[in-house]
């Protein structure tokens, strides 16, 4: 089916990425740190911020789609909920940005619970369509709840984040590093979750939910946890989006944003943390680079989505990688130790 040469070229790319994973992460961190000082103007800084945001949205969705195979096409609803909550807390109640964004994440998480519960028995396309519905319902709420979200007028002059009087904005690169810090924290959170019993439980739900139930795993509880975590991360970053944009109304959170988040994750490689990073870089910088393609820009955007999916359905750095089997370092050391111990026990008795 797949012709040999083409497969191993992408394999090479994947092997290249995963072999010197540590090197790439360090290089990435270096780029992240020196980028703001080298970049000529705020425009590129802003593009980097948007890339980091979509990368975090990708991490959030990965918990649902990558880990548990639950398709959510309504992430823009969670982002919007977080953004509006933070905006209201910042503008009317004059809260500091840290409690405001955390509150935004909390509100989004509660919404995740509300949408999670009724849809637990749904699978695949049914769940995808219901989550689209959730996105549309949230957009209608943003448009019509005038007393809170400002309705059609939206919320304007949302202040930049500031701590003890020091304002984080593009000029002093504060805002950028704030987003970098949040993205890294979310990334570590997702990695920690993946390499624990929760990660394994999510994998069992993705592959065979019935067997998981008959092994005592509370699949319902984990799915709700997944929805809440994914919503919280989207809501948290939604707050930063509001502070970056400084003016939000209901048509900042339309379904195009949800499709963009899903595309970043799937084209990058669902089920991994490196996937959303690559997906975000590609899909955010693409429209900026081909800015003067005018009308044809979106046509190319569509074509890229099609070509990527046809060439590499599992995503460029996909989860079920076709890499030759390779022992992860952490497991191998423990195994050596335990084998040695067993041998000693064997010799003694």
């Amino acid at each position, binding site marked *: 089916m797949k012709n040999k040469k083409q497969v191993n070229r992408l394999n090479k790319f994947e092997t290249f990425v995963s072999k010197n994973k540590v090197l790439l992460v360090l290089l990435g961190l270096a780029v992240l740190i020196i980028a703001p000082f080298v970049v000529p103007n705020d425009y590129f800084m802003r593009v980097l911020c948007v890339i980091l945001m979509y990368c975090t949205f990708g991490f959030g969705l990965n918990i649902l789609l990558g880990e548990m195979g639950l398709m959510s096409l309504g992430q823009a609803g969670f982002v919007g909920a977080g953004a509006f909550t933070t905006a209201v807390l910042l503008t009317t109640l004059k809260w500091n940005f840290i409690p405001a964004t955390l509150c935004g994440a909390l509100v989004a998480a509660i919404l995740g619970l509300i949408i999670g519960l009724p849809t637990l028995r749904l699978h695949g396309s049914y769940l995808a369509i219901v989550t689209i519905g959730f996105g549309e319902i949230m957009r209608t709420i943003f448009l019509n709840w005038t007393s809170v979200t400002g309705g059609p007028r939206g919320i304007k002059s949302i202040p930049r984040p500031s701590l003890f009087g020091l304002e984080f904005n593009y000029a002093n690169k504060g805002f950028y590093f704030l987003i970098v810090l949040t993205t890294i924290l979310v990334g570590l959170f997702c990695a920690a*979750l993946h390499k*624990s*019993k929760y990660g*394994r439980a999510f994998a069992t739900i993705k592959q065979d939910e019935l067997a998981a139930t008959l*092994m005592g795993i509370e699949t319902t509880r984990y799915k709700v946890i997944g929805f809440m975590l994914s919503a919280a991360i989207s809501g948290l970053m939604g707050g930063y989006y509001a502070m970056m944009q400084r003016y939000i109304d209901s048509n900042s959170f339309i379904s195009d944003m949800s499709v963009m988040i899903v595309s970043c994750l799937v084209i990058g490689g669902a089920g991994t943390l490196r996937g959303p990073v690559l997906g975000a870089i590609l899909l955010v910088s693409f429209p900026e680079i081909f800015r003067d393609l005018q009308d044809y820009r979106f046509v190319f955007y569509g074509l890229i989505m099609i070509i990527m999916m046809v060439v590499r359905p599992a995503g460029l750095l996909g989860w079920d990688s076709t890499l030759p089997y390779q022992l992860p370092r952490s497991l191998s050391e423990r195994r050596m130790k*335990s084998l040695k111990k*067993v041998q000693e026990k064997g010799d003694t008795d």
Partner: protein
Amino acid sequence: MEMLNVKDLTIKFGGLVAVDHLNFNVKKGEIVSLIGPNGAGKTTVFNLLTGLYTPTEGSIVFEGKELSGMRSQDIVKLGIARTFQNIRVYTKLRVVENIMVGSHIHTDYNMLDAIFRTKRFYQQEKEKYEAAMAFLESMHFAEKADMYAGSLPYADMRRLEILRAMASNAKLLLLDEPAAGMNPQESEELVQFISKIAREDGYTILLIEHDMNVVMNVADRIYVLDYGKLIADGLPAEIKTNPKVIRAYLGGNQ
């Protein structure tokens, strides 16, 4: 006192009575086998025992506790684990991870421990990993520990599924046609394996099986089901010569 006691177990799907007033019991440490022609309702009995279906009538008592109506997850926590007719092993996870998933309900640390990598997290993970490795080691499975379960041969997958069921500290194992699709040499190994875990490790086993020589060599007692009704029970020797059983299987001329 029996470990498992089933009285008048019945389930109807619309008009069809899949299991009709079934009575049987399993004592601790015993290997009991449930046999019968295809469609006799054997797997339905397993589904009833594990809470997948709720019985229309009758009761299932396990170590004094009534099971019918309980959620599958709670039943597993009580100590009943099962395998499946068509293998449901997690092919994309490693063998050792499959075992650790089996013991998931006994890994007690919460999400905060996982996120902040507390001592309790490392201690629990290490303990569970060591237990899984020791477990695999004792079953001569250790060298395959880090392979993806998907790349195991068929018989090994079968055994992995049984090992996973054992890993959830189950007292009663419900094995659903473990020898299906196995060549004689493999089923011979399976017989050794089952009798070893029953005799040495003290597991109680309820076995559904078609392969007669596996049943005859392994089972202490046998119940024979036909069209959801119990038509015979007793020692393997008796069952072998029982005319009703033969007719049920070979379809003699009533």
